[in-house]
């Protein structure tokens, strides 16, 4: 395995690697608080463990956080490449005839400029704005200049969706799609699409780093992500963040001008975003203890069944989901539930797409990515902490995605409004206002 642009554990390497351009550093270091993992920056002492190691003959401490990428332990150092990384130039490799909307064009120009100047930029684009297309020109320019481009995505699903799309518009470019179990492992390509975990293998490798759906990274990998991004990109490189729902701090930084950002406040189809309606439904958890649900929720479901309009119903917990699905199946036998660990997740989403499932009860797992033309959504228990501002904006973003059906109902059933709910609604209203002001909506 060639080491250029990487940092690998000694145990991953054969003895015959190029020792001239490498630096060998401890993967686990002692700190005042205890230990820190040099590869993933974990310093949560609960995520370190020790064992009698047969390799070093001592009680050896290792990092449990990034262990799926091989075990960083006191006797297993990191071998870091510090030599030059090869570079390949392509002459305008982009093969795409699509048309950008005016707002996309503006964002695309900003992305090109950031890449050219090695700046950082936040692309704040609503769900359905067409974020990926906004990157094409910038990536094209970078590849033409012999720069190495990396797109980090929160989950394997996203990598699997993004990689073939990019491959089809950059057919001549060598690409790597990295995720757990991927065939491209260890490849250093001109264009890389990767999960955060796989990013941990790279060191000062990329000239352009794009972080897709930055808010979607599971909370636990949040801190790890920015660390991994900083290590994997070159010190002199550009950094582009893409999101529909930046967190509060970022929104503040954008407002005060501390963070350079470009917004795409309207969808490609030039219709406004559907605004959520709040509906108080009382103490639904208490009701459920008597196997009953609030009447407004039952009514909403029945109405949709009668009108034959497909819908998602989001619920806060997997335990509740599993209890409530059999209850709804009394209304209609084809109602299904889906959650993150559901082995039939893909099949159920596909069946929903085909119209075979009238109502899909789901945890937040379907909050993003899934685009189905004509649906409504409701959240039951919108006051629960799992429904953050960003989760609620994403949920609302499932509705009205196609030009043919640009509207729909977004209903938050709650037992007391939360800050997150209000912030989500305000967020959507503000985006619509900005879009109107900039003339990006036809009404």
């Amino acid at each position, binding site marked *: 395995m060639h080491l250029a642009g990487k940092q690998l554990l000694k145990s991953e390497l054969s003895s015959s690697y190029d020792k001239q351009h490498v630096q060998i550093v401890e993967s686990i270091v002692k700190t005042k608080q205890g230990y820190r993992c040099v590869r993933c920056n974990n310093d949560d002492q609960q995520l370190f463990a020790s064992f*009698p*190691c*047969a390799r070093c003959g001592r009680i050896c401490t290792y990092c449990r956080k990034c*262990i799926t990428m091989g*075990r960083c332990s006191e006797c297993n150092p990191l071998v870091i490449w510090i030599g030059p990384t090869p570079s390949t130039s392509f002459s305008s490799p982009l093969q795409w005839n699509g048309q950008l909307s005016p707002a996309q064009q503006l964002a695309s120009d900003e992305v090109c400029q950031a890449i050219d100047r090695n700046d950082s930029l936040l692309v704040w684009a609503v769900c359905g704005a067409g974020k990926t297309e906004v990157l094409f020109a910038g990536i094209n320019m970078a590849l033409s200049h012999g720069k190495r481009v990396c797109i980090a995505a929160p989950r394997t699903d996203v990598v699997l969706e993004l990689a073939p799309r990019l491959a089809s518009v950059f057919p001549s470019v060598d690409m790597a799609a990295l995720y757990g179990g991927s065939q491209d492992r260890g490849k250093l390509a001109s264009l890389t699409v990767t999960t955060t975990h796989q990013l941990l293998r790279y060191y000062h490798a990329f000239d352009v780093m794009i972080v897709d759906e930055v808010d979607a990274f599971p909370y636990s990998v949040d801190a790890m992500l920015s660390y991994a991004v900083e290590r994997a990109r070159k010190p002199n490189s550009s950094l582009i963040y893409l999101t529909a729902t930046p967190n509060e701090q970022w929104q503040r930084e954008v407002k005060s001008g501390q963070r350079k950002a470009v917004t795409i406040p309207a969808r490609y189809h030039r219709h406004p975003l559907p605004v959520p309606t709040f509906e108080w439904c009382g103490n639904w958890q208490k009701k459920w203890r008597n196997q009953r649900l609030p009447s407004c929720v039952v009514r909403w479901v029945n109405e949709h069944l009668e009108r034959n309009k497909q819908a998602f119903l989001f619920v806060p917990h997997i335990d509740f989901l599993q209890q409530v699905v059999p209850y709804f199946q009394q209304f209609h036998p084809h109602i299904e539930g889906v959650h993150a660990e559901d082995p039939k997740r893909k099949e159920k989403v596909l069946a929903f797409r085909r119209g075979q499932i009238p109502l899909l009860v789901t945890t937040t797992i379907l909050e993003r990515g899934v685009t189905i033309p004509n649906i409504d959504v409701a959240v039951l228990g919108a006051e629960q902490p799992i429904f953050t501002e960003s989760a609620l904006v994403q949920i609302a973003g499932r509705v009205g995605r196609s030009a043919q059906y640009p509207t729909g109902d977004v209903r938050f059933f709650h037992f007391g409004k939360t800050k997150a709910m209000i912030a989500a609604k305000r967020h959507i209203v503000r985006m619509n206002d900005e879009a109107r002001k900039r003339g990006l909506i036809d009404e």
Partner: protein
Amino acid sequence: MKCLICHDEWLPPVSLAMLLTLRQADVCCPRCRARFIRLEGNRCERCSRLSDQAICEDCIGWERRKTVLKQNVSVYMYNDWMKEVMNRFKFRGDYALVEAFRFDVRRVFDEHFSSDVCLVPIPLSSSRLAERGFNQAEAIASLLSVPMIFALQRIDDEKQSKKTRRERFVGRKFCLTGEDVAEKRIVIVDDIYTTGATVHEAAKLLYDAGAREICSFTLVRS
């Protein structure tokens, strides 16, 4: 507290019974815990596999071949969850996960064996041991407060040259280290019992070295 397996935060309930018996709270959250399926109900009395027959087909086969292994006791059933946890424990090398098994391992062991037995963990080859850093069978055995004897040694797969012709011919996996097992009651410990070939072979070797009564204790029955 963080769940040992999923790393999610959870609050273990504090009960009076726990305070009185000084029983430790579980190291994993109820959701992860519920996914381990303990072997209970109708089982083959020889190998612990779920079975309606008192002795399953496989064990009748072993008997015909005059096995010296009296009984295998297993703790958990093999399922997708177990596969995932074992993968992290063994192949990724997350040693700490052994703690998730402590309570059930001790309970099931105590139900079947007295404390005057000796444990013999199934060894790894030296190259595998260096790669992994620990032997999972030994890690499981160390949960029990019972003396261990390292009576077996693996004949390294790579080092065919060091095997005798006969060893190569029959594909023997182990040889004796010379540790004394004569007249001792032995419980062989391993992570998983699939066909049973491994523990039955180990039992034969120990029997020939003079061990008296040989059983096996495995974490998982697949």
